[in-house]
C-alpha cells in the first residue's frame, strides 16, 4: 500500500502541475480551459516525433514546448479576438469543441495505443532514496519540485511584479484593465503561451508512466479539473495539495485488487464529492440560479 501511495505521489506532482495550469488560466484569463492537456500532448508528441527522427532530447524538448505554446496561443488569440465579450460558459464550450478536434487530429497524426504508441524518454526513473522498503524515484522529487516552483514562482510574480499586478487587474476587471491602458490582448496571449509550454513539460514528465498514447495524455484534463476544483479554481497552494492528494488516492486505489480497475474513476468521485460539499449550504434559489 505504502509503495503504491509513493508511486501515486509521482502522478500527484504532475496532477498538481496540471491543476495549477487550469487554475492559472481561469484566474488570469477567465477561461476554463479543456484543451490544456491536449495542447501539452501535442507539444510532447512533436518532441518525441523529432526524437524518433534523430534529434537529441535536449533540442527536441524546447521545440515541443514551443509547439504546445503555439497551439495554446492560437486558441488564446481566437478567444481574445472573437469571444472576449462572451461569458465564461461560452468560452468553456469553445475550448471543449477545440479539445475534441485536437484529440481527433492528434490520434490521426500520432496514432493511438493500438496503432503505435510512442516511447517517451524517462530520465528520472533512477531511485532517489529509500524509505524503509519503499524506493522513491527521482521522478517524484522532480514533479513535486516543479509543482512547488510553479506555485511559489507564480505567487511571487502576481504579487511582486508590475506585470503580475497587471495580470491580477486584468483577471478582476478585464474591461477596466483596458480602460486604464493595460494591453489586455497581449497579456492574455502571453498567459496562453506560458500555459501551453508548461503543459507540454508536464505531459513529457508524466508520459513515460502513463504510456505514450495521445488520447490518455489528452484526457488528463479530467484529473486536472478535479484538482482545480479542490483549489476552488482560485487557491494555488490548495491546488498543489489537491494534486498530491489525488495522486495518493489513485495510488491507494490501485493497490487494492478489488477496486484497482476502477482507479480512473477517482477524479470524478472527487468532483462529485466537492460539488455536493460546496453546495450543501445553498438555498434553493442559489442552487438553481446557475
Amino acid at each position, binding site marked *: 500500500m505504502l509503495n503504491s501511495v509513493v508511486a501515486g505521489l509521482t502522478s500527484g506532482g504532475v496532477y498538481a502541475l496540471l491543476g495549477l495550469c487550469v487554475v492559472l488560466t481561469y484566474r488570469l484569463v477567465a477561461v476554463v480551459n479543456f484543451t490544456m492537456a491536449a495542447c501539452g500532448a501535442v507539444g510532447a508528441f512533436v518532441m518525441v516525433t523529432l526524437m524518433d527522427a534523430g534529434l537529441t532530447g535536449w533540442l527536441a524538448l524546447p521545440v515541443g514546448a514551443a509547439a504546445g505554446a503555439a497551439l495554446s496561443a492560437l486558441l488564446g488569440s481566437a478567444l481574445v479576438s472573437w469571444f472576449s465579450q462572451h461569458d465564461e460558459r461560452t468560452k468553456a464550450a469553445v475550448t471543449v469543441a477545440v479539445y475534441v478536434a485536437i484529440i481527433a487530429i492528434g490520434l490521426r497524426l500520432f496514432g493511438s495505443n493500438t496503432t503505435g504508441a510512442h516511447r517517451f524518454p524517462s530520465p528520472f526513473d533512477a531511485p532517489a532514496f529509500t524509505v524503509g522498503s519503499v524506493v522513491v524515484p527521482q521522478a517524484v522529487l522532480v514533479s513535486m519540485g516543479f509543482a512547488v516552483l510553479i506555485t511559489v514562482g507564480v505567487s511571487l510574480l502576481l504579487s511582486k511584479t508590475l506585470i503580475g499586478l497587471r495580470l*491580477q*487587474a486584468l483577471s*478582476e476587471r478585464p474591461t477596466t484593465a*483596458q480602460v*486604464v*491602458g*493595460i*494591453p489586455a490582448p497581449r497579456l492574455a496571449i502571453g498567459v496562453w503561451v506560458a500555459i501551453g509550454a508548461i503543459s507540454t513539460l508536464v505531459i513529457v514528465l508524466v508520459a513515460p508512466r502513463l504510456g505514450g498514447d495521445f488520447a490518455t495524455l489528452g484526457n488528463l484534463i479530467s484529473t486536472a479539473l478535479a484538482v482545480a476544483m479542490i483549489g476552488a479554481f482560485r487557491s494555488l497552494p490548495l491546488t498543489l495539495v489537491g494534486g498530491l492528494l489525488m495522486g495518493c488516492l489513485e495510488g491507494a486505489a490501485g493497490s487494492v485488487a478489488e477496486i484497482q480497475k476502477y482507479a480512473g474513476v477517482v477524479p470524478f468521485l472527487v468532483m462529485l464529492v466537492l460539488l455536493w460539499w460546496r453546495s450543501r449550504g445553498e438555498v434553493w434559489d442559489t442552487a438553481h440560479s446557475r
Partner: protein
Amino acid sequence: MSDPILSLTGVHINRGEVEVVHDVSLDVTPGAVTVVLGANGAGKTTLMDGIAGLAPVTKGTVSLGGQAIERLPTYKRALAGLGYVEQARTTFRTLTVEQNLLVAQAGKGDPATVFRLFPELDKRRGLQAGHLSGGEQQMLVVGRALVADPKVVLIDEMSLGLAPVVVQRLMRAVVDLVGLGIAVLLIEQFAHLALDVGANAYVLRKGRVVFDGPCSQLRGDSALLHEAYFGQAPTESETR
C-alpha cells in the same frame, strides 16, 4: 478660446446591434470642464463608452490631439491620453490603493500628485481597494485616471450612490484636474453641480445633441434646461 483636444464629428455609436448615439459632434477644450446632460436613456454613457472604445463607433471620427482614435483598441486610446472614470466605482478591489495606481501609471503620471489631491488615499496606501468607503473608492478611480498622464478625462456619473458632501468633495477634485491643464468631459446626474463647474454644455435627447452652448446659459434657466431634457417646457405643476 483654445483648440479642442478631443473632437467628435458626426459620430454614431451602437450598443449591440442597436444604434444609440446618432450624428453627435462635440468639442472638449483643455483646461475646462465640458458637461454632457440628458435624461436617463439619452445615450450619455454609450457616448462615453464609444469615445473610450467600449462601444463601437460605426460612423464619424473621434480625434484626440489631432489623431483619429475611433479605430484604436481601448488600451491604445488610454495610452494616447484618454482617461475614463467609469460608472460604479471600478477599482481593482483585491489590489491595494498604491497598486491600483501603479498598474495604471504611465508617462509623467505620478502617484504623489494623486495623494496630494486626495490626502484621504495617502493614509490608506496599503489597504485593499475593496475595503475603502464608497467616496474613497471613487477618489481612487479618479486618481487612477490621473496617474496615467491623460490629456482628457471622461467622467461618468461619479456621484452615483454617494453622500452630497462626498459629491461636493469630488467636484472640487474635478476643478483641480482642470487646474492641472487636463480637459474634462463630465456626465453628472446633479445637473446644477455640473453646470457650476462646467464651461460648455451639451444636452443629449434620444441619442442626439439638442443643446450646445455655454453652461452659463443653462445655469439660471431651469425652463430651458427642462425643455432641452424633455423636448417641452415644464407644465405649471412641474414649475411649482
